[in-house]
C-alpha cells in the first residue's frame, strides 16, 4: 500500500515490531518472496537456518517411530527456514517503513470507530488517539479484540485454539550441527506427537536455529483445562523424553514464551471484509495446523488485503462490495484450498477420543515397531501378527480401525 503511494500507519502495541510476537519458528520462502523478491540475498536478512530436513516423530514412553525427509533440493532456492520473531519482525516492518508507512509503536488499538455500518478508524490508548482511515486492516492476532469489537467473531471456544509454550535454548553452533547432522546454515525441523502431550490433542516441535533450539509443546485448550496440567509441566516432561533430552542437553534456556494458536480451521474463518475493513492472519483463523503453516498464510492474506485496498483506492470506493476483491483473492488462493481440504479435521479431533489418536495409537505403533525389530527367537510371522494385533486393539478392533482410517481420510480430503 505504501509502495503504491497510499498513506499507511503501522500500529504496534509493543516497544518495537516483534516485541510481543512469538511463533514456533518456521517461515516460508515462496510467500515472503512474493512480497520481498530475493530477500535471501539481502545482507543482514534475519534467517536462522534454512530447512533441509523435516522429521515427524511418534513418541512412545521412551521410544520413537520416525518418519522424515531430507533433500538437498530444498536448498535451491530455500523451501522454508527458521527465524526468531524479534529479529524477523523488525526487519519485515522496516520494509513497510522504507516504503513510506508511518510506524506508531507502544500504542494499543482498543476499538474500531464506526459511522453507521462503516468502519472509519480506530481508537487507541493514547491521549487524543483516534485515528481515521479509509480502511482498517485488522491484524491483531489470535485474540483479535478488534475483531470482537467489530462483532465478526464471538469469543473463540476452548476447542478452537491451542496453547503452545516454548523455550529458546542456547547451544553452541558446532553441537547443533553435530547433533542434527548439518553443515553451515542447514537446519532441521522435528514435529512430535504421542507420549509428549499426555493423551491430549496436540503436538510438540523442536527446530534448529543458528545457535539456539526452539522447543515447544502445544495442546488444545479445552483438553488442557480438563486434564489440569500446567502447560510448562508439559514442556518439562517433553525435555525429559530420551529422544529430546539428548538433543538439548547442556543447553541453557534463554527465553520462555507462550501463545495461542487458532486451530478452528475452515469453519472458524469469520467474514473477511466489510465497509472500510479487512481482517488478516491469525485474527481471521488463517492457520493450517495440519502442516503447521501460519506465517505464510498471514503474509499472503496481508498482501491480498493490501492489493485489494490499492484497487479500492483506484475506484475511490471502500465499501464492502469494493473490498470483496480481498475475499475473492483469498478464495482463489492456496489459503482457501488448503483450509478447505482439512475442513473436517477439527470435527474429527473433536469427536474422537483424544486418548486414541494421541496416546493409544502412538504407543501401539511404538510397541509394534519394538516387537518387529526385536530378535528374540519368535518367528517373523508371529511378530507380524503381534504387531497388527497391537494396532487393531489400540483402535478397538478391526472395524473401528477401518472406520477411523476412513474418517481420517475424509477429514483430510474434505
Amino acid at each position, binding site marked *: 500500500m505504501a509502495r503504491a503511494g497510499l498513506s499507511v500507519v503501522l500500529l504496534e502495541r509493543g516497544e518495537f515490531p516483534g516485541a510481543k510476537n512469538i511463533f514456533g519458528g518456521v517461515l516460508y520462502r515462496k510467500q515472503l518472496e512474493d512480497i520481498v523478491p530475493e530477500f535471501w540475498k539481502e545482507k543482514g536478512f534475519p534467517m536462522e537456518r534454512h530447512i533441509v530436513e523435516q522429521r515427524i516423530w511418534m513418541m512412545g514412553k521412551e521410544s520413537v517411530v520416525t518418519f522424515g525427509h531430507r533433500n538437498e533440493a530444498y536448498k535451491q532456492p530455500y523451501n522454508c527456514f527458521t527465524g526468531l520473531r524479534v529479529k524477523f519482525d523488525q526487519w519485515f516492518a522496516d520494509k513497510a517503513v522504507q516504503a513510506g508507512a508511518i510506524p506508531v509503536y507502544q500504542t494499543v488499538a482498543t476499538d474500531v470507530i464506526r459511522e453507521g455500518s462503516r468502519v472509519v478508524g480506530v481508537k487507541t490508548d493514547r491521549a487524543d488517539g483516534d485515528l481515521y482511515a479509509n480502511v482498517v486492516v485488522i491484524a491483531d492476532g489470535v*485474540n483479535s479484540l478488534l475483531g470482537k469489537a467489530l462483532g465478526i467473531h464471538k469469543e473463540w471456544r476452548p476447542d478452537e485454539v491451542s496453547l503452545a509454550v516454548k523455550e529458546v535454548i542456547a547451544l553452541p553452533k558446532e553441537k547443533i550441527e553435530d547433533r542434527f547432522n548439518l553443515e553451515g546454515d542447514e537446519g532441521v525441523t522435528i514435529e512430535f506427537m504421542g507420549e509428549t502431550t499426555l493423551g491430549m490433542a496436540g503436538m510438540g516441535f523442536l527446530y534448529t536455529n543458528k545457535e539456539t533450539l526452539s522447543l515447544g509443546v502445544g495442546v488444545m485448550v479445552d483438553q*488442557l483445562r480438563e486434564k489440569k496440567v500446567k502447560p510448562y509441566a508439559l514442556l518439562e516432561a517433553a525435555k525429559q523424553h530420551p529422544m529430546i533430552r539428548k538433543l538439548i542437553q547442556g543447553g541453557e534456556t534463554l527465553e520462555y514464551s507462550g501463545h*495461542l494458536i487458532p486451530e478452528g480451521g475452515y469453519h472458524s474463518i469469520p467474514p473477511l471484509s466489510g465497509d472500510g475493513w479487512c481482517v488478516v492472519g491469525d485474527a481471521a483463523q488463517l492457520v493450517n495446523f495440519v502442516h503447521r503453516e501460519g506465517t505464510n498464510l498471514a503474509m499472503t492474506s496481508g498482501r491480498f488485503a493490501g492489493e485489494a485496498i490499492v484497487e479500492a483506492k483506484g475506484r475511490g470506493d471502500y465499501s464492502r462490495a469494493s473490498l470483496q476483491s480481498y475475499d475473492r483473492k483469498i478464495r482463489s488462493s492456496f489459503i482457501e484450498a488448503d483450509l478447505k481440504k482439512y475442513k473436517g479435521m477439527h470435527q474429527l479431533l473433536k469427536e474422537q477420543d483424544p486418548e486414541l489418536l494421541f496416546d493409544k495409537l502412538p504407543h501401539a505403533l511404538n510397541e509394534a515397531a519394538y516387537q518387529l525389530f526385536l530378535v528374540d527367537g519368535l518367528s517373523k510371522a508371529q511378530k507380524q501378527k503381534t504387531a497388527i494385533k497391537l494396532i487393531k486393539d489400540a483402535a478397538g478392533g478391526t472395524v473401528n480401525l477401518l472406520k477411523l482410517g476412513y474418517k481420517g481420510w475424509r477429514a483430510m480430503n474434505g
Partner: protein
Amino acid sequence: MSESISDKLFTIRYKCDDVSHLIIKERDSCLKCAKKDCNYFCPSDVYEWDKKQKLTTVAFENCIECGTCRIACPYDNIEWVYPKGGYGITYKYG
C-alpha cells in the same frame, strides 16, 4: 535449564503497569467455581485461589498476554485487555 516457572518467567523482560489489565469480574463466580481451572491452565501462574481470603489472586505482572484465561475461564469471569501500549512483556527472541 530452567525448570521452575519463576526461572522461566525471569527470562522475559517485563515493564509492569501500576494497574492490572486482568480483572476478575465477579468474586462470587470464583467462589461458586468448583474446579478452579485458571489455577492450572495459565502458562505463567497468574491466578491462584486464596483460601483464607476466598478470592482469586491475580499476579498480572507475570502475564505473558496469551489470552488463554479469557477463553478458558468456565464462568467467563475474566475481563481481559492488553496492557497499555509499551507495557507488559517484551521478548528478546520470540
